């Protein structure tokens, strides 16, 4: 028990300011709350019925001037306090332009933190001192609240949206991290520590691998030490880019703005005009809504055609996608460094012809087709090539060996060569009635995977 403190540690740039206001309020309170009881005590004793020596005549029962005085003075004082508090509040809620952004996911009953370089930690938050840090937080289940008493900051963490807060640590050390919003059984164990480090220590810590439990419950050791190489874009954004590619987002969200969906280049932080005429600032919450519920807000000039990804992406993955989209704004141009193979490593072409039952022998390899189906799903092909024909791309059912009319009027037979070409270079032969919007997969997928895909398409019938 250290000597009975009345204030927690002052470890952030806000702490002193909040404590000053608090101290002033205590002073004002003593002026009223401290003096008034003594007035009451004095009156109690002086005018007690046993005291016959005091004058009780000429009573007054109302006095407008008095009423106005004791309404007016407190009013002025609370207004002063209000404006002081309001300016401080606006300061606390307004992050500076350049901040270190850290993603936080709350879940029953732990905190999961991911740093921009990909480093993760549980129930701990390492931050450098003297550098503004902004936390972008969301919850996987119920409402939590990220509370750092020594920093005098607290922000509820809500499911289904982002909340953020910022602070600047000023003193190295370890401080409490609490969940302040009641969140169920182990609410009081949803605690941890925030570790403020000097910049040098922080950078050293960032590249040290560590074991964490991922939000989905699986535990993973960071295989290779995450690297802090700001020049090449940070790993979290890189993972996001891979996700972006494998989901097939790039097919519509083309960087040149010619896609079905709006370009994401320079989107983050800009003002977007919606189809209903309103203007929205593209912040994290807007990006999040647009991924999970694309129909809610539609950018002017575009159609409501994007499928919803609600329930298909973890909070973790949404964070990565958003980190990627944000990287498209921060670094100016480019960032679309290709070559990110979405490698599903299974390249064994086990040719175990699964002759299923009697009748017609299948004209495709069942094992390969099964793998192909996996690739098909992973790449997000189903988003456009819907089996009911209602997608952006043509349905693939009964496609194999059928006659296909192309946009240039010619007719081709959809044989294997056609399928392979369409996968590798979709723009070469476009089916009549469809737009050339499918991404060119080129060499991003291996020959084995193309093979598997073709077998899968063949399995859909001919």
């Amino acid at each position: 028990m250290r000597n009975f403190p009345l204030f927690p540690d002052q470890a952030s740039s806000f702490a002193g300011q909040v404590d000053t206001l608090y101290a002033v309020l205590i002073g004002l309170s003593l002026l009223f709350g401290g003096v008034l009881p003594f007035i009451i005590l004095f009156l109690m004793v002086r005018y007690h019925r046993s005291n016959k020596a005091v004058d009780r005549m000429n009573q007054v029962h109302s006095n407008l001037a008095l009423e106005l005085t004791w309404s007016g003075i407190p009013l002025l004082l609370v207004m002063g306090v209000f404006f002081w508090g309001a300016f401080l509040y606006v300061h606390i809620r307004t992050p500076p332009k350049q901040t270190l952004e850290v993603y936080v996911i709350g879940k029953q009953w732990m905190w999961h933190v991911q740093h921009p370089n990909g480093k993760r930690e549980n129930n701990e938050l390492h931050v450098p001192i003297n550098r503004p840090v902004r936390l972008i937080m969301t919850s996987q289940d119920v409402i939590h609240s990220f509370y750092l008493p020594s920093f005098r900051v607290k922000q509820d963490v809500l499911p289904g949206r982002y909340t953020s807060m910022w602070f600047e640590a000023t003193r190295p050390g370890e401080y409490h991290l609490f969940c302040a919003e009641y969140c169920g059984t182990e609410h009081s164990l949803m605690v941890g520590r925030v570790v403020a480090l000097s910049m040098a220590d922080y950078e050293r810590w960032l590249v040290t691998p560590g074991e964490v439990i991922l939000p989905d419950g699986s535990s993973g050791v960071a295989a290779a030490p995450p690297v802090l190489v700001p020049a090449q874009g940070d790993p979290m954004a890189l993972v996001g880019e891979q996700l972006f590619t494998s989901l097939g987002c790039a097919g519509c969200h083309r960087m040149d703005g010619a896609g079905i969906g709006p370009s994401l280049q320079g989107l983050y932080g800009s003002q977007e005009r919606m189809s209903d005429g309103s203007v929205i600032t593209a912040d994290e919450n807007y990006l999040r809504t647009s991924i999970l519920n694309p129909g809610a807000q539609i950018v002017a000039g575009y159609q409501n055609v994007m499928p919803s990804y609600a329930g298909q992406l973890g909070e973790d993955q949404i964070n990565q996608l958003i980190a990627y989209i944000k990287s498209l704004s921060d670094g100016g141009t480019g960032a679309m460094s290709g070559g990110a193979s979405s490698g599903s490593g299974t390249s064994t072409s086990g040719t175990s012809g699964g002759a299923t039952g009697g009748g017609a022998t299948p004209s495709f390899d069942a094992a390969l087709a099964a793998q192909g189906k996996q690739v098909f799903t992973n790449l997000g092909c189903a988003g456009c090539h819907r089996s009911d024909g209602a997608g952006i791309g043509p349905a693939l059912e009964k496609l194999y060996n059928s006659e296909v009319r192309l946009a240039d009027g010619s007719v081709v037979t959809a044989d294997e060569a056609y399928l392979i070409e369409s996968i590798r270079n979709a723009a070469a032969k476009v089916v009549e009635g469809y737009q050339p919007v499918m991404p060119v997969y080129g060499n991003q997928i291996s020959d084995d995977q193309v093979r598997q895909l073709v077998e899968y398409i063949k399995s859909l019938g001919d």
Partner: protein
Amino acid sequence: MATTALPQRGYLHDDTPDLGEWIRSWLFTVDHKRIAILYLLAINFFFLLGGLAATFVRIELITPQGDLMSSDVYNRMFTLHGVIMIFFFLIPAIPAVLGNFLMPLMLGARDLAFPRLNLLSWYLYMFGGIFALSAAVLGGVDTGWTFYTPFSSTYSNSNVILTITGAFIMGFSSIATAVNFIATTHKMRAPGLTWFRLPLFVWAMYATSLVIVLATPVVGIALLLVAIERLWGVGIFDPALGGDPLLFQHLFWFYSHPAVYIMILPAFGVISELISTFSRKRIFGYEFIAFSSMAIAILGFLVWGHHMFVSSQSVYSSLVFSFITMLIAIPSAIKVFNWTATLYKGSISYRTPMLYALGFIGLFVIGGLTGIFLGVVAIDIHVTDTYFVVAHFHYVMVGGTIMAYLGGIHFWWPKMTGRMYNEIWGGISALIIFVGFNMTFFPQFVLGYLGMPRRYHVYPEEFQILHVLSSAGATVLAVGFIIPIIYLMLSLKTGRIAGDNPWDATGLEWKTTSPPPTHNFESIPVVTTEAYAYPPEAAARDAAEWRPGSPL
């Protein structure tokens, strides 16, 4: 006092020897005074139950480890404490017991406007109570009394629906009472009893009733929606199902902030009565006290967002809510100053109700001032959801409402039962409660600013010393609450016969016998003066008559 026996025609009196008949005469009574007694018994039962839960919470918190009970049990305990105390004690306490008993008496009416509705409200209260109790017995509920979504609607595995149903039904009980009070105040005042001759207790109850009528249905529908979401898995508050968790908070606090005023406004009314009577003097600034009640009732509807400063509501709305919260401090301050001014040149006696009233002022000042701390957003960010908030609202709710409730019970006890309680024990227990209360809750302000979050089952060791202090205070407080139960019960048999007006008070309720007859007045009184019409020389005369040996 010339009287030596209770009046024969008192509402408590029964001439039937048949037990079944006697029970029926109580359970089917439409007499507002008997209904008030029914409420008194039921509400005190719930108070003891809520207090028991609080005891377990405080014992658990003596050590930083979770050693007495598991976290699940602990969560159920503080939820039980919150739900019972808020919905089944604080909200109905003063209106349903003192208000029911006194409103017609103070207004010079024979009964409330809708006596059967009044009885129905008691049954609704009991019915709601049974739901809440059965939820507790069948395994409890662990959402906290705030029922925040989506925890309550999707994630909690406890008896949320039963509890919510209980609170929902109890809400209709409040509404029935409030409708009754509004209609009675408007239409059933005695001849000559104009609005500005009404006792301030009536003003306070009227303002309270307006708040109840406007706010309770909103929380009713919010709780109903939680129940529907839970039953059918249909999303309105859970974002995973397409809803918005903040909508619940808005609907909930739209009621639950005014609910704070449902709890404290009646207390203001009681205190005004007590201060005036025991100073032998008209209240200072009658109009200001009356209108400040109305101002609080109105402003109380515009500040719900100050519970949500860190919930991600926009900066602008937070500032607006903060601003209005600052304004609401003014009418509260006006009341305190006017009460203090009433003491000046009075003839003050330290009878038990007055001790409670003076204690109330001290505690309410602390509760109110810390409310300003919480209204300043920059500080609220740090202290919200910590023990600072816990301490603040206990100062207002326990230090305010319960002190006033106990003061009122003591003050009108002779009117309700016809007998006096033991004044010495009364004074002792009032002092014990005052000391125990401050011991319990003042350390929690410090705890809160140090960062101790509320609803924590285990906590860092550095907070232990303050928690131990708080728990020790709670023990003292518990003793203070138990003593009155004993001597008040004893007074029913052995108490001195009170007579019609033992306090020399002025209200119409003191013009009839103690206890009053079933229809309150032999003849409807005609009012010719303001409330608290003590003549100018009353205080001086009272002091002149005092002799050593007279009550202090």
